[in-house]
């Protein structure tokens, strides 16, 4: 879930802040930068695979850092932030939309917009933007919200909660989140503006929206503490009568295993890295206040590397055997765990979630219906009911139906009959089969003149027979042509059968 930090760098952000306990003078933007650093610290400790980009905005916007996992790049960029003109949130949102769609297409994202409660003045002000939201004519002028990709919009307001400007601004911010329609939250400071309150606010945001997903992966009696990245989102399915919400539970249960060739390449709605979680982490977290804990941390991580973990065993075997583990993540929601490599060198364990529901993969059938291969007493019995699960109906491309949409279709069917006619009496059965097929199709289309035309063609073939031809060929051709001209030919229930001759047994049997 990539994040865009959008920092307000308008003049109002350089208003001084009076801090009781610190003699130096600070500006709001300094506090904002401090807050962002707090947030980045949290990510480095708990959510280090997150991609973050920094956008600064005032009347214009500028992407100061592209999406990166190296948060020092962002810290450096923050130090160079300058102050520009007035706040224009619509510009910021347009910029964010551009930055995200360029890079991520349809990936869910989060935006943290940091401002100070001033809505801007004049045409570009948030007040004006929201007033004119429904009056935009052209596509270019369209209000950037809701974003064309899934995106949460958080707004952090660096200002005293009692400040009249801030109190005035909050309803507009809420309106913005409502228009965005994809979630998000307003974060205001708890108490007067200070480094501490800004820090607390950013920590609150990070802990709520960037807490890693912790769960347990079980496989029979094996159990392993794991973390999923990115954190799984709710899956909401809209039905005619309301909606159903699916949540990944903290107990991921492996049901069994499948060969990659049996699972095919099934459609998936999300993918998450399955990372083993150190069981020691919890006790460490408690000690984190003291800084001397750090060295112990290093020791622990080394120990962790040497303590066998089920995920590593699973990963190794899945890769060697080319298999996947079918995993239940909550009621009626399943996924597969497999070994995945971005480059050839580094591979890891991945959980890909299927569409929620029992029948999301037609070729494996319902998940509830899967059972252990040991339930079959013999291999033969198992083969009868193995993958892929076949549909009841045969598709039109998988059977020889007659299609005469274009002249070429009819032509090739007639040619087939003639090809067999020329190889009589060897191809006697194929000849009559194709002849009947074509005749039946002509009758069902009401294409009756075709029968007479076919009779003429067969008669012509008869006259063109070479002298070396078997006498039976001429007999069969004449017989077929006569039938096509008879009244019986128009009866769909009838079919023309080979003429019994003295030769037939010798030649075909």
């Amino acid at each position, binding site marked *: 879930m990539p994040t865009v930090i959008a920092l307000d760098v308008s003049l109002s952000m350089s208003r001084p802040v009076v801090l009781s306990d610190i003699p130096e003078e600070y500006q709001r933007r300094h506090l904002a930068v401090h807050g962002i650093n707090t947030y980045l610290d949290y990510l480095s400790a708990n959510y280090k*695979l997150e991609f973050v980009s920094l956008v600064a905005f005032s009347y214009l916007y500028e992407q100061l850092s592209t999406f990166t996992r190296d948060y020092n790049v962002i810290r450096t960029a923050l130090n160079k932030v300058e102050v520009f003109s007035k706040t224009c949130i619509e510009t910021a949102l347009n910029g964010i939309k551009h930055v995200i769609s360029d*890079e*991520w*297409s*349809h*990936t869910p994202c989060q935006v943290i917009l940091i401002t100070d409660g001033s809505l801007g003045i004049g045409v570009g002000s948030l007040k004006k933007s929201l007033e004119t939201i429904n009056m935009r004519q052209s596509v270019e002028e369209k209000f950037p919200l809701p974003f*064309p990709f899934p995106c949460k919009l958080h707004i952090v307001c660096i200002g005293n909660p009692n400040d009249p400007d801030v109190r005035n601004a909050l309803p507009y911010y809420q309106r913005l989140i409502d228009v965005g329609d994809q979630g998000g939250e307003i974060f205001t400071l708890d108490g007067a503006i200070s480094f501490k309150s800004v820090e607390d606010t950013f920590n609150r945001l990070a802990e709520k929206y960037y807490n890693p997903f912790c769960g347990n992966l079980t496989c*029979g009696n*094996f*159990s392993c503490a794991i973390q999923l990245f*990115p954190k799984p989102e709710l899956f909401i399915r809209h039905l005619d009568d309301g909606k159903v919400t699916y949540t990944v539970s903290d107990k991921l*249960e*492996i*049901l*069994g295993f*499948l060969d990659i*060739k049996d699972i095919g*390449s*099934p*459609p*998936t709605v999300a*993918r998450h*890295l399955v*990372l*083993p979680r150190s069981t020691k982490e919890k006790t460490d977290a408690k000690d984190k206040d003291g800084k001397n804990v750090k060295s112990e941390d290093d020791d622990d991580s080394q120990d962790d*590397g040497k303590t*066998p*973990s*089920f*995920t*590593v065993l699973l990963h*190794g*075997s*899945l890769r*060697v055997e080319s298999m*996947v583990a079918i995993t239940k993540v909550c009621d009626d929601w399943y996924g597969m765990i497999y070994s995945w490599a*971005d480059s050839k060198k*580094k591979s890891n364990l991945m959980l890909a979630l299927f569409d929620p529901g029992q029948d999301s993969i037609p070729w*494996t059938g319902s998940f*509830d*219906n*899967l*059972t*252990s*291969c040991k*339930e*079959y007493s013999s291999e033969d*019995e198992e083969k009868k*009911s193995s993958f892929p*699960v*076949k*549909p009841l109906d*045969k*598709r*039109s*491309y998988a059977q020889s139906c007659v*299609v005469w*949409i274009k002249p070429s*279709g009819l032509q*090739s069917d007639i040619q087939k009959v003639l090809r067999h006619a020329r190889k009589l009496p060897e191809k006697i059965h194929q000849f009559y089969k194709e002849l009947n097929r074509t005749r039946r199709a002509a009758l069902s289309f009401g294409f009756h003149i075709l029968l007479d035309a076919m009779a003429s063609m067969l008669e012509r073939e008869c006259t063109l027979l070479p002298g070396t031809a078997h006498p039976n060929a001429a007999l069969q051709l004449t017989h077929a042509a006569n039938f096509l001209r008879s009244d019986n030919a128009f009866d769909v229930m009838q079919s023309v059968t080979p003429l019994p001759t003295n030769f037939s047994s010798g030649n075909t049997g």
Partner: protein
Amino acid sequence: MPIDECELVIVHTVPLGQEIRIKERVQREISPVVSCEVTSSLSGRHLYNKLVFLCCKHFDLCSTTVTGIPMKEEQNASSSANYDVELLHPAAAHDDLFKNEHAEGLVIPSKEGLPIETAPLKWCTPKSNVVELHQCSAAYRICPVDVNSRPSSCLTNFLINGRAVMLEQPRKSGAKVISHMLAAHGGEIFIHSLPTSRSILEDPPSISEGCGGRVTDYRITAFGEFMKENRLVPASPAMLERYGNRKPYLYALDQLEKSSRFWPMVISDTVLFNIQDINPLPQLLLKDSMTDEEVLDCKKVILKVVGMESKNDPLPVPAAGSRGKGPKREEQYRQLWAEMEALIRSYSDTSEGHAMVLECLLRCKKPGDDPVTLAKKTPGKKEDKSGSTAEVEQSWKDLDRFQQMTEREKQDALLGEKSLDAPPPKKLKSEELLMRSGGQTLLSMWNNRLKTIESKRSHEFDGRLDSDGDKARLYIHLDENR
């Protein structure tokens, strides 16, 4: 069936060459549930095009043309030409394609002459037959526009025979963007949409960087077998009948639970699974019930271990492991016995036969051995029944202490092994350590050892197995014959 909504479409058609005299009408509502539309068409091919168009509209379909399919010429098999095949499928398969703002030039008029647009995607000849797992965001069924034309059936047959074809977007920049894949499953052909944008999972950490990543002797092959034993298959109708209300997957879970009761993950953590002689014991234990013969097979394995121990056969244990270097042979046998007990105990309540195997093991085991459980290393939960955790901890600590001995001490210990008959006094130090674990004196331990070796030297008289005490009655069937 109650009808909630009805769209009535009237298609007026006239033979070719005649004039259409009816005016078309766009869709309009007649009542809240019925809407009506009048449309017209010439007959023949035109009618067909009209119907396909209406289908696309109604079912929200769109078209893809697979371009540049290499195909042998019908008449001249040595040369090949490139063909295009147009397919219809749900429009959602192209969601990603058109979400992109650079979608210009991605659609062209239908090559089959349909009144719709089609997205041309280039055929990429598959390099191998190996089925790979592709990341895929959606899969929809397809149908060729001209179902049975030669190019169409060539493509569909190719796919139904199990090959997958990647499709590439035409890009002027020359960058290769593969956005779709055609593949058949169970005789049905699907178009798979593959994500083309940047992934947030790029450059993931390697599994070796995480917890347990530096352990190198996982039982990968054995777990591969475990996975094959726990493969999922669709339940047959006969099975469903037998299962009644219980869902089939629950039987798979049972199997998974059963086969993972005692399963050390690392080679250096187990003696049991490193020796061939243990077969077929673990496999037989998995059965729901055992025949007398199978029980006997299990007992044979146990007796074989007894024999090995009495002969002091070396056990194949990998030299390097996470627990330090080469534990003493005696220790290995202790671990082997402990593992065997844990393994057999975890299945002992399965059937009478299983219980008999456990009984046999308990009798054969050296009485001095601690009821060591291996809870620490295995996922099992059942073996906790034996021994208290305190004892387990103690015995592991002792084992660790042994392993922490200096290299010299260990060598002494190993040297001692070779001349069992006359243990040199040097050995005492390590021996002492071991003694404490059992809570025995040296004398009692030595006596026990002699006793076990003694008792195992000859095969137990079968008649005595069934008897009450030490004495066995001979000719028990003698009276019956009279």
